[in-house]
């Protein structure tokens, strides 16, 4: 079959200050092709696609759409050329229906022909296999439905070229399957599809060809069938990486932390956590799986004393710590480390240097009114050395460090306090592959040292490789606790969408 070039990008260059986000990048995407754009965080994937969708203007190079040279001065130009970008964060109006969101911003007559609109939406649904209720309000939709709606929106505008930025990040395995079906339908209809991702399994599963970016440069384009995952990683990282996470079953477990029917309410009275009970022992990593916002944040903060619980008890080595503030917890000498999701917004003080960030957890137990920095200087030096933190000095503001190094400062500080329990929320989010594996190693080290680690993760593959047990949350309820050795991703996926185990005898 003869395929036409839908997108041709030639020698694209874009700099932000000193940093060359894109340098001489070439990209060809054919009609009826799913093209994966692969690269680590900061490799320049999103920048490149933002130029295609008219959000940025390239400093150099040229773009051809369907063979025609184009210069986009705004996203409107790009939409006119049939390009639709679906961003990682949905841009929908919550209180409107699907239909209303679709026509939002579209040129319409004074009165909207609802019949015509419904017919068109139905037509698109049938053609691409998009399952959508046009009269459902967005706030009632699941994440998967919202994404379908986003796709519908760009198709309605006549897009034949779709750019999807990390589309599967928020979906359950089942939703991903459905989503891939839609992608394949669109491909058959002759759409050109670019998927930005860093998940290798998905690249292998869905794409026809893959272009790898590294540090703003295109490393190469390959036909997916002809490469394997290790090869792609080598292209992404620039060197061979050992991607195995060791997991040892450790003996001598003693219970450390137990939650007994914890309920946490949100501001509007809903249950963010609903009767959650769990146990965490020494020498183990307990994984927490779930779709985004299923109560993970509340769970971590409730244990750390940052969120009020409306019901239930939390035992730390047999002592009930419910209602204790973080200050009480520190004062009582309870050794608990917490790596929050929002590192610079909660775990660290961005504008302060490493020493003063180490002070943060230290000073409460210092006597007197003066701040003693001396011991923290020594600690900072030790942590920088031990975790190999790349920083000009220990007096550099942490917000100037890279994401991986920021996380290492935070983790280093928490580990340095010799915790018995370590709570980590998405500790590898935003980190490159090398740093992520370094973090996994560190968590395993802690486990070996007898720490009970709570690991809230989003990548099911990692959760299954790293954790001894996985607890699945859905809408704030525990839908099951599984042993990764005896379950499948699909099984966990079902639990994530709320189907409880129980009869099958898989709960712990």
């Amino acid at each position: 079959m003869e395929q036409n070039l839908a997108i041709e990008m030639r020698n694209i260059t874009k700099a932000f200050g000193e940093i060359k986000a894109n340098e001489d990048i070439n990209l060809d995407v054919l009609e009826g092709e799913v093209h994966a754009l692969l690269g680590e965080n900061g490799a320049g994937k999103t920048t490149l696609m933002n130029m295609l969708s008219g959000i940025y203007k390239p400093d150099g190079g040229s773009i051809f759409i369907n063979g025609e040279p184009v210069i986009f001065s705004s996203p409107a130009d790009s939409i006119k050329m049939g390009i639709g970008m679906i961003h990682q964060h949905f841009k929908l109006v919550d209180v409107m229906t699907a239909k209303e969101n679709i026509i939002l911003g579209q040129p319409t007559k004074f009165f909207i022909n609802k019949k015509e609109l419904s017919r068109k939406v139905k037509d698109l649904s049938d053609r691409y296999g998009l399952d959508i209720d046009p009269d459902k309000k967005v706030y009632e939709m699941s994440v998967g439905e919202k994404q379908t709606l986003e796709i519908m929106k760009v198709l309605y505008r006549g897009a034949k070229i779709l750019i999807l930025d990390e589309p599967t990040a928020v979906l359950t395995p089942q939703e991903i399957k459905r989503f891939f079906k839609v992608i394949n339908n669109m491909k058959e209809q002759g759409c050109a599809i670019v998927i930005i991702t860093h998940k290798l399994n998905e690249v292998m599963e869905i794409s026809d060809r893959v272009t790898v970016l590294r540090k703003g440069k295109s490393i190469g384009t390959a036909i997916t069938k002809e490469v394997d995952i290790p090869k792609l990683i080598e292209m992404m990282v620039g060197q061979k990486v050992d991607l195995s996470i060791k997991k040892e079953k450790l003996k001598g477990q003693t219970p450390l932390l137990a939650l007994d029917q914890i309920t946490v309410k949100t501001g509007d009275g809903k249950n963010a956590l609903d009767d959650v009970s769990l146990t965490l022992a020494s020498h183990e990593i307990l994984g927490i799986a779930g779709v985004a916002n299923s109560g993970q944040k509340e769970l971590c903060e409730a244990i750390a004393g940052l969120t009020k619980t409306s019901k239930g008890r939390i035992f730390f080595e047999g002592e009930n710590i419910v209602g204790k503030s973080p200050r009480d917890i520190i004062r009582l000498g309870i050794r608990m480390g917490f790596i929050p999701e929002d590192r610079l917004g909660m775990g660290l003080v961005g504008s302060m240097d490493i020493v003063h960030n180490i002070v943060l957890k230290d000073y409460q137990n210092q006597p007197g009114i003066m701040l003693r920095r001396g011991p923290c200087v020594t600690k900072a030096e030790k942590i920088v050395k031990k975790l190999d933190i790349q920083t000009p000095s220990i007096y550099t503001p942490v917000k100037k460090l890279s994401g991986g190094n920021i996380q290492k400062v935070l983790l280093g500080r928490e580990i340095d306090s010799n915790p018995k329990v370590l709570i980590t929320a998405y500790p590898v989010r935003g980190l490159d592959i090398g740093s992520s594996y370094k973090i996994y190693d560190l968590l395993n080290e802690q486990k070996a040292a007898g720490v009970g680690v709570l690991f809230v993760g989003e990548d099911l593959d990692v959760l299954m490789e790293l954790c001894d047990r996985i607890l699945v949350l859905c809408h704030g309820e525990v839908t099951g606790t599984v042993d990764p050795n005896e379950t499948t991703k699909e099984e966990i996926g079902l639990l994530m969408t709320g189907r409880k185990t129980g009869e099958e005898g898989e709960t712990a």
Partner: protein
Amino acid sequence: MNVKIIKRKDIPKHKEVIIRIMAVLLSIVFAGVILLAFGLNPLKIFGAIIDGSAGSEIRIKQTVLRAVPLLITSLGIIVAFKMKFWNIGAEGQITMGALGATWVALNLPEGLPAPFMLGSMMLGGFICGAIWAFIPAIFKAKMGTNETIFTLMMNYIAIKFVTYLQYGPWRDPGAQGFPKIAKFTENAILPSVLGVNIGWIIALICVAIIYVFMTRTKKGYEIAVVGESVQTARYAGINISRVIVIAMLISGGLCGIVGFIQASAIEKTLIAGIAGGYGFTAIITAWLSRLNAITCLFVCIAFAMLIQGGSYIQVSLGVSSAISGLVQGVILFFVLGSEFFLQYRLEFPKKPVKEVA
């Protein structure tokens, strides 16, 4: 022509200093141009400002008298601003501090030894200033009210309350019908050292205390953490309400001390206009000193020179003192503007982007 605004990654220290000096120089040049446009000789005006503020012993004393209240007020504002608590109620806190000091002066027995009298007045000033800051602080801590509006409004309440006292209950029957409060007795007036009231010594001590407090104590550290991120403060187990209240007690208390100094040494009584705008000018000086107590000392001296020089040129050259206000404004504009150039740089592409279309 397209100019690109580019974020700087990091800026070397010497470059930062150059940019800041450039900003001040440019502001002087720019102010000079404005003066020229008014048909005035800028060199003469600038010369007169310096001469008027530092040209003789008396003029230097006058400058110091202006620098003292400005400096202590700025220090108070620094403590609040470091926490990102926008205290623009210094004017009212000064006024209430003066009221507290005055109440003490008028109610303690006349024959009291001066050190005891003055110490009590200072304490009274501190407490009243602190109370005036405590009110918005506690509302912010407990109910999340907006401190900017709250502290601003508190200014007017304080000033009007003093006016009421002046015309009403505290009116001096011996003032021949004028709405005045009685003058202080001798033991309630600050003595002088080196020809200026000892307010300047109090100010220098405050600089040292606030510098150490903000950089070396646990509370100072907590204030900085709360200012940076409330979430992080919570995470670290900091009692945020307590920190807000303590910081504001200090902030308002310092302003209260200013009220005491102004009432005792300058006016020798209480008047409604006792704060004289220092509460607002100090916001500028606190910012310009980048919330650093030591830097603040120099910034306040420079501003006091401008204010003093401004009133001098009015007398000696017959030029409106608004000129010095204008120079202050221009300096502020350029120095704050230079922040932009510290964060970003402009790039002018040498050759236009190749257009293929």
